[in-house]
């Protein structure tokens, strides 16, 4: 009988918890080792790869894309596990240790699936859309400071670059919604674009508050400032700025309570209703990569990025980012969904004026 096991289920769950923590630690150790790959024997290899501009770029691209792919595999697993715990379930646990390989199995399934194109689809748009969504996501990683030596390109206008590139995602989503030639997709696409463009405004204002504080747009500059003056979240005008950033980031990521573009109970699956197989996987990949990027971006802006004692920088960065991502997941699996007019109202009536006030406060503080 299924009810008689409540005690042992608790025991199993705590055992699982220990297992997951263990997996976490192993991953962090791997990250630390990669972060310290300055072993003497490998130096000539790094030197060679770093010297040639094209090779250098290629290596970076390969490293980053595989880093993102692995990260997404892990994030999806972690989200399912975490959601399972929140919801009195166990989450995946059969494929691999603690169900770690479940996402890999799902990805393999998606790759082998038939790639269905609706007969009435606008083919070029339909085919391109997943990549138009995915590519800007990868591009934004370029300026993310993962560790002291882990920044692919330290642009001096990094923040501007991030804002410009990440808003390109809206194009892809609109293309997906329109190209599918499905009414649910179209509604989802329209909702997504309205949402992304609206929430861009408070997000940019929140980022600008940081910029006025620090006096620079470069990521390294922001981290250096925090190394000298402490985390920016500890400066009081930036606490509301962070909260605005977090809410806007949730909206940009289409996560509950802002998951209207893919609201399952209303629009079936929103803009990716018609997608299957690998194209669908690309949307998923982009969603989770974006999630990591937004959290990482917030960590770099407000929580000192890779700064931290004893452990290598990349470990600190990933730890902080995961805490933030878990917070986002917690929000996602707890609250209901907003309605479209309420969502717009929240943005334009509350967040935008508030972010303006915060910006002015931050500017006043900075010019003291």
């Amino acid at each position, binding site marked *: 009988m299924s*009810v008689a096991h409540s005690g042992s289920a608790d025991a199993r769950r705590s055992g699982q918890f220990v297992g997951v923590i263990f997996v976490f630690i192993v991953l962090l150790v791997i990250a630390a080792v990669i972060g310290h790959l300055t072993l003497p024997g490998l130096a000539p290899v790094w030197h060679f790869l770093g010297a040639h501009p094209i090779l250098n770029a290629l290596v970076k691209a390969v490293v980053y894309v595989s880093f993102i792919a692995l990260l997404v595999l892990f994030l999806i697993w972690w989200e399912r596990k975490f959601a399972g715990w929140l919801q009195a379930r166990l989450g995946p646990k059969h494929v691999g240790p603690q169900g770690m390989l479940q996402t890999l199995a799902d990805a393999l399934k998606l790759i082998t699936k038939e790639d269905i194109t609706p007969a009435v689809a606008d083919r070029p748009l339909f085919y391109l859309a997943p990549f138009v969504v995915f590519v800007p996501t990868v591009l934004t990683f370029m300026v993310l400071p993962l560790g002291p030596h882990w920044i692919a390109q330290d642009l001096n206008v990094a923040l501007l670059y991030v804002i410009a590139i990440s808003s390109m995602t809206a194009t892809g989503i609109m293309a997906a919604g329109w190209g599918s030639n499905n009414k649910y997709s179209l509604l989802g696409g329209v909702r997504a674009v309205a949402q992304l463009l609206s929430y861009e405004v408070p997000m940019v204002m929140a980022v600008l508050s940081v910029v006025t504080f620090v006096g620079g747009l470069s990521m390294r500059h922001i981290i250096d400032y925090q190394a000298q003056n402490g985390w920016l979240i500890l400066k009081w005008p930036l606490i509301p700025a962070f909260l605005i950033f977090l809410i806007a980031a949730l909206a940009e990521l289409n996560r509950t309570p802002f*998951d209207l573009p893919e609201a399952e109970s209303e629009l079936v699956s929103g803009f990716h209703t018609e997608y299957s197989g690998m194209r669908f996987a690309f949307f998923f990949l982009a969603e989770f990569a974006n999630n990591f990027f937004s959290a990482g971006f917030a960590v770099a802006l407000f929580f000192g990025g890779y700064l931290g004692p004893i452990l290598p920088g990349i470990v600190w960065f990933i730890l902080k980012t995961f805490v933030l991502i878990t917070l986002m997941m917690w929000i996602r*699996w707890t609250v209901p969904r907003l*309605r479209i007019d309420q969502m717009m109202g929240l943005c334009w009536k509350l967040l935008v004026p508030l972010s303006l006030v915060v910006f002015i406060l931050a500017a006043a503080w900075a010019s003291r």
Partner: protein
Amino acid sequence: MATELKNYNTASAQAQGIQIDPIDEQTMVINMGPQHPSTHGVLRVILELDGENIVNATCHIGYVHTGIEKEGEFQTYLKAVTITDRLDYVSASINNLAYTLSVEKLLGVAPPPRGQYLRVMLCELQRIASHLVWLGTHALDIGAMTVFFFAFREREKILDLFEMMSGVRMMPSWIVPGGLRGDAPEGYFERVKAFVDEFPYRIEEYETLIDQNPIWLERTQGIGILTPEECMALGVSGPTLRATGVPHDLRKAVPYCSYDQFRFEVPIGKYSDVYDRYRVRMAEMRQSREIIKQALENMPDGPFNVDDRKVMPPPREELDHSMESVIHHFKWWTEGIHPPVGEAYVPVESPKGELGFYLVSNGSNYPWRMHVRGPSFMNLQSLATMAKGRLIADVVAMIGSIDIVLGEIDR
């Protein structure tokens, strides 16, 4: 006219005689269902949208028509109990009860007190289970996914209780004309008691998640308002009616099954919106728990079935020494029961509203006519009234709030 819109939905709707009359060319006709995640089965709503605003909503039903009413006329009274389970499949016991009470009225019998109390206990457990399904799916529609899992966790325990008694989780068919199929097994009441003691904390858990959640309030307050007059005109009953402030509960109004011996309140709402329906159902779960508690405390001893060999078969030990009992046993299992000529309708308060079976007997062992007065069918009619002028996201909340089950609507 709608002919300008050359798309499948409009054409098929017109072919089926559904009026679609776009006000201008800016409106879009969208087909919500029958395959849609939040239409609670296979409801099809044809929405005419202006942007995201609803200009017109037309419900189209019949996708799971199973001919239960007609089928009921081709089954003996005993066998038909099994099909009533399939009507509103999340509150099967209460369907059994409604049917059984009509048959018992035809027969002019009523089970002894223990049978009545067991029935009340089963039905209230079933009401909680049904409300939990409603809570989970309704919250899921509004986007709160975790509530769904929490609600189904407790429903699972109720289903385990049903399994313990009847061997079946969802379709027990345990309430039959003349009483019940069997008594509660050993240790049953202790387990019901354990559930009843635990349940208030669980309700609090659900309420922690959504009760005062600003997003939940925003999404449900002031949405889907129905006036009491509209409810009366449309035949809306159950929690949806009570949310408008009308304290109409058949368990109080026309007590059946010894409900008059139980102390409970009829929760009512004030603003008759989606949120009030939610509050009313949550309060009803608490009241049901009270009723189960009282049933456990005052559970009478003695027989639970009618002592009439024409209605219930003789117990096994009688068959060894009584020829008459063997004959009764054989007749009951082969022919079933023969109610006298007449007609009967006994409404009961199902989790959705007034449920009743209108039975006409011509003296044979088959009902001559069986008609179901289903609450979901009546309640669904209110959707068009509620939806006009609202947003597409609200339709989902409204469908959830009237708590429909398509199995009973389409029959």
